[in-house]
């Protein structure tokens, strides 16, 4: 195995996260259903943006990234145990 910079920093740690897709974004992922948690194992150092790319969701469709109930930016790093929810533009009231 070739060690890259991130792996040196983080060891070979893996992250376990839970992803939920909503309001049409689930259609980009095979067998996904809205609201049904998808359990994923990611390399340490994965950003929200990278996760979206790995899932195969065109990034222009993602408007909000909520991690543990808080808004996050695409470049933010994910942590072990994170609950991630992705949304297109939504509104109402």
């Amino acid at each position, binding site marked *: 195995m070739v060690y890259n910079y991130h792996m040196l920093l983080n060891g070979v740690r893996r992250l376990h996260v839970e992803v*939920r897709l*909503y*309001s*049409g974004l689930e259609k980009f992922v095979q067998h996904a259903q*809205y*609201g*049904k948690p998808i359990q994923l194992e990611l390399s340490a150092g994965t950003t929200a943006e990278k996760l979206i790319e790995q899932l195969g969701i065109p990034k222009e469709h993602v*408007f*909000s990234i*909520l991690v*543990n*109930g808080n*808004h996050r930016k695409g470049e933010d790093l994910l942590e072990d145990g994170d*609950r991630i*929810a992705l*949304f*297109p*533009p*939504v*509104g*109402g*009231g």
Partner: protein
Amino acid sequence: MKIVRLNMTTKQASFEEVPEKYLALGGRALTSQIVADEVPAECHPLGPNNKLVIAPGLLSGTSAPSSGRLSVGGKSPLTGGIKEANAGGVCSQKLANIGIKAIVVEGKADAGTYIMHLTADKAELIAADELAGKGTYELTKILKERFNPKVGVICIGPAGEMQMLSAGVTNNDLEGNSSRYAGRGGLGAVMGSKGLKAIVIEADKTFDAPVQDKERFRAAAKKFADILLKHPVCGEGLPTFGTNVLMNVINEAGTLPTRNFRFGRFDKAADVSGEKLAEVAVARGGKQTHSCHPGCVMRCSNVYPLPDGIECSPVEYETAWAFGPNLEINDLDVVARLNYICNDVGLDTIEVGCTLGVLMEAGVIPFGDGQAAIKLLEEVYQGTPLGRVLGAGTAVAGKVYGVTRVPTVKDQGIPAYDPRSCRGNGVTYATTPQGADHTAGYAVTANILKVGGFVEPTKDDGQVELSRNLQVATAAVDSTGLCLFVAFALLDNPEGLPTVVEMLNAQYGTELTVNDVTALGQQVLTVEREFNIKAGFGKAHDRLPEFFYEEELAPHNTKFDLREELDEVFKF
């Protein structure tokens, strides 16, 4: 334009010229101003001195997109303060098209049930005892058969006739469903107290209200439609899944009030979300999208068929929350059934949801028991003691059963965003003259939806200013007849508000500027606040219930913390 004055004591209806001071007002600005001018603030809301004022917005009845909202005002029997509730449906546009600026209903009939028949040149009060006690769906159907199928019907159900404090005033949509409620604050009880069951409006036209400069108006209206359609929420989010698309994002954000405001998340929220609703509605031959009034481009409503063929249109987010997570119910059929009964019997769904939450807290029926909730709500038709407690609203139910976890401000139930983790909305709930009202300054935009900037929802910084600006803007939008949802686009697109001003100037031949719109919003709030002060309200009424300051809300484990800062909201 004319004002129709209906005196229920003398049974006389008359047309009046519009006084000059009211010419530039419409919708909420007009209802609140007439109430402030004509209703003694100390009066009993169900006595002869209160008035019910109904007004289309300034742009209603024209081709301006999404401009058909109807304002209903009076002194609220629920809050004891001034109230404006507004609704979609067909009646705002009909009123504007027969030249009606406002209807003022005053006095009180000794006995009996009456309807008013209104055309461009005639306003007639008709005795209609045979209609007493009718549900709104049947009532609307009867009146359409009696007059003609195209009439608009503004009416109340049995709850309004029984003067229940949560009774709303409704009107019909394009299909004739009496489900378009000016629901909040008990204005249906005010209408009922006067002996008025319905107003039947005949108007053949929808978009032909007088416009001074038609070319200029058409260009501005087209531009405004483009602005709405290009906005990601107005043009994409709302037209796809409707308002209930919010269920999942509010849940994920941890601010979905669950089990009478005990938790911020409901693990079964997706079962009652917009996505689920679209699936079921379409499979049963209903509609995933639907316009609440002609000419709306956002089409955020829906038609949800129940298994027995009854159609509930719409099931909105606030209602799905009130009867769903708030009661720990995860069955959309139960939610839609409760919604339908409220529409028919004539009650505000948010208030009924909050009241059921308190009754469940008291152990009257268990949390999660949808069938028990339906049975209890059906008691409202009979006016049983428990049915009357339910119809009297959240605060009364709390007092009757000795519950302290009562989510109200100024005795009005708090809607679908917990103030501890959506603090901007907490500021609005606490301070709006309307009593807890999410639409009065919808800070969910910047707190959760990332529309009009971003203000961290679990922190205090910026929330007072956010709520203040939104309350001012909302008071102005509510006066135009535009749907509040246009605000999503107005907040993000700098051309939005100038285009609204352009439409107003083209229609009325005025030279308003964007600053005049802000001034109008401030004026509306000032008039409403002054009425409330005369009615006995003070700083202590501009606070949230104690438990929001003392109990942490999971998952963010935050409390509400703003007190004296709330007194700064109306320092414009």
